[in-house]
């Protein structure tokens, strides 16, 4: 889809949330972002910036990790989704693919995919159709459908995790670090499939990535997180061309290579939305 998304419907609205783990550890300090329907939105940033926490706050998986949203609001289709069950979120069409795949090791690939349809009530034939749809996007999974997921390769496990999420017939998929631990070629392959799913099946994606380079090539809009705050946002094209992003996240600069000493001071643009 396009970089110009002005007229698109706003699906998810996170405004100024603060997340605290274990009642003491403040991880997010005012993160706001929007996810448009039919788009690929990327959250970028380094380790510990709060990308995964943001996703978990949306999917409500935070609770089981002793985290809590203490301020701000999260609205999906204009309804507050704070303190919902994760299973209620899946029913509403929001599902998270967790960082590090998390396949069910002892289940076969096909059984893994079928667990994704746990919350569905629209009948067996619909589920069977979607299984075929998932296999058509991930032909590799079809070859390995009968093997235990624990014995498949990292790339296959990532595909299995994404496929499993698709089996819930989602409207929005929260994709956490899909490139983690994968060879560049596989990363490319997986992002191509994500793009395909976005364009052909109309699934919206919100993805958290450290691999800024790949993410900005496939996403439409990006947010850059730094120690729990959004420091910059813009269309992927703008971000790709922004000199700060180039220098600090993409590792290129217009002056060629230089030492850290010459690095220019980072103009942070902190945003405070209420």
């Amino acid at each position, binding site marked *: 889809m396009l970089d110009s998304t002005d007229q698109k419907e706003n699906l998810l609205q996170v405004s100024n949330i603060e997340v605290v783990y274990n009642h003491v550890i403040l991880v997010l300090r005012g993160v706001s972002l929007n996810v448009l329907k039919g788009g690929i939105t990327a959250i970028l940033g380094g380790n510990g910036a709060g990308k995964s926490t943001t996703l978990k706050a949306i999917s409500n998986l935070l609770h089981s990790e002793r985290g809590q949203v203490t301020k701000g609001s999260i609205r999906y289709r204009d309804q507050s989704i704070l303190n919902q069950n994760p299973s209620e979120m899946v029913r509403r069409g929001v599902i998270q693919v967790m960082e590090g795949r998390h396949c069910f090791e002892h289940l076969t690939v096909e059984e893994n995919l079928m667990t994704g349809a746990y*919350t569905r009530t629209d009948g067996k034939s619909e589920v069977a159709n979607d299984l075929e749809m998932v296999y058509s996007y991930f032909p590799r999974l079809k070859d390995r459908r009968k093997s235990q997921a624990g014995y498949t390769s990292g790339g296959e496990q990532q595909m299995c995790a994404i496929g499993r999420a698709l089996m819930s017939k989602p409207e929005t998929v929260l994709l956490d670090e899909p490139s983690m631990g994968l060879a560049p070629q596989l990363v490319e392959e997986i992002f191509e499939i994500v793009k395909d799913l976005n364009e052909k099946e109309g699934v919206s994606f919100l993805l958290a990535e450290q691999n800024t380079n790949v993410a900005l090539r496939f996403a439409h809009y990006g947010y850059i997180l730094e120690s729990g705050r959004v420091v910059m946002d813009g269309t992927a094209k703008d971000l790709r061309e922004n000199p700060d992003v180039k220098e600090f996240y993409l590792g290129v600069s217009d002056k060629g290579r230089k030492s850290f000493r010459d690095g220019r001071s980072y103009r942070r643009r902190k945003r405070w939305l209420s």
Partner: protein
Amino acid sequence: MFFLLDPFFYEIVISGLLAGVMYALVALGFVLIFKASGIFNFAQGVLALFAALTLVGFQTGQIPFAHLLSVFGFHVSHWGSGFPTIIALLFSLLVMIGLAWLIVQIVLKPLVNQEGIILFMATIGLAYVLEGVGDLMWGANVKELNVGLPEGPSEFILDTTDMFIDKLEISAAVVAIILVTVLTLFSAYTKMGRALRAVADDHQAALSVGISLETIWWIVWSVSGIVALVAGVMWGAKSGVQFSLSLIALKALPVLMLGGFTSIPGAIIGGLIIGLGEKLFEFYIGPMIGGATENWFAYMLALIFLLFRPQGLFGEKIIERV
């Protein structure tokens, strides 16, 4: 092969196997909970005791908490002659399902995402609470349990083969076979069964696809409560319902080490091996070393297994990709 001609040998083998079935029944409850929640449920034996007590209570028409009521001046003990066995069984079943719900709400839910050892300690606490509540509800005296299962030596087998086999043990075997078949089919082919195995593998991921842990835990604890009921009925019919019944849990431990903590067939085969080994060892080796080997044989066998095959015979292999 002199012993193959010995008629005693076959009798020992069969009664060993049948005793093994009884062990397996207890071990089964452990496996179910361990698989689904990674908790080693110390309270499984007490669960069996509690189930048997409840069943007897319903059967004989006891009023629960009669002792407590008499403190407040209500001197009642029975409300009638009790329910027929089948109704009492049904009610006990409902009590076990309700109990499972309470355990999930009070014990498991607040402890989500804690270390296994903490949950294990919680089940130790649960065991003592349940034992106390059972005592308070139904009294501590030894009760006789009769659910109408055939008892005594089977004349048919005695006549045809000259062997002395208890009918009760045969029925226990039949019940166990039915139970295991149903459970295996349930876990392999139903949506709930698949969800159950998914939770066993990865809690977080199960949550992320919308599986409700509470529901799954409730189902698992209910099922193992029902298994405990069956085990309690069998053991209770054999030796009366008394508080030492909760110690059968300790007999299940070596069975689990042998069969693997995560395998339903493992629990059965482990039970059979222990039952059989115990009887044979006692009969052939026992006299040479002074007897009473049944007390320790199972543990010794389990120890040997721990050394050479720590996941047990059928335990899930710890998957390690290289």
